[in-house]
């Protein structure tokens, strides 16, 4: 049957499994994600949109290097899945990292705006 995976929106919407009144012995309740694939019971949503063993183009730049393949999700370090989130800097008081980052950002913006005004 045509897989409904194509309609799947990006994973990690809300918490996935809703448990109603206990149904012991029944098959695992269907997940409430956008994937409406009711034929496969309780499949873990993959962390990555890149299936294992996909060929990763361009990374075998050495001569006679075999193509680089994507590995299963579990073989990648856990920090990889958080890299798309911005790092929250906790305010550590005057002179701390948060203040330095904020000042650097403000300075750069000030310079950029000044340069923009000079171009007008």
């Amino acid at each position, binding site marked *: 049957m045509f897989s409904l995976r194509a309609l799947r929106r*990006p*994973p990690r919407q809300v918490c996935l499994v809703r448990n109603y009144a206990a149904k012991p012995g029944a098959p695992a309740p269907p997940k409430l994600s956008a994937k409406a694939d009711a034929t496969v019971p309780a499949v873990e949503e993959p*962390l*990555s*949109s*890149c299936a294992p063993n*996909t060929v*990763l*183009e*361009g*990374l*075998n*730049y*050495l*001569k006679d290097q075999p193509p*680089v393949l*994507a*590995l299963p999700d579990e073989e*990648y*370090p856990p*920090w*990889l*899945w958080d*890299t*798309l989130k911005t790092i929250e800097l906790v305010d550590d008081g005057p002179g701390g990292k948060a203040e330095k980052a904020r000042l650097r950002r403000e300075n750069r913006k000030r310079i950029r705006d000044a340069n923009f005004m000079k171009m007008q």
Partner: protein
Amino acid sequence: MSKAAATKAQVVRILIAAGKAAPTPPVGPALGARGVKSMDFCKEFNARTAHITPGVPTPTLITIQPDRSFTFITKTPPTAYFLKKAAGIEKGTGRPGHETVGTVSLKHVYEIAKIKATDEHLKHLRLEAIARTIIGTARTLGVQVVP
């Protein structure tokens, strides 16, 4: 403190296709102007990049001493090159942030980070830090990174 005779060592940064250095521009004038025999450089460069697929852009740093001898270092190909290959595009967008021209997965980013981590000036960084810089480059190329 007197400086030795002429000027101090000059540094030339240039991007050359692996295995394809030739005395013609852009390599020829860049080196010739500083007194280096481009033929010598090309032979040595091609020998040192023989293990790389021909045509892959290779950043090199050439240090030219006052007596016209030279040494050079090669680095890993630019991140933008890897990202464009991975996304299957030729050029990045002219309007980053507004247009998206390609998509790449975090797995691609991880593998690229592993390659870049072999570079001298990146060896001391955590792989996570390198991966974040690659995502930053993808942003300026207009390449979207998905998990």
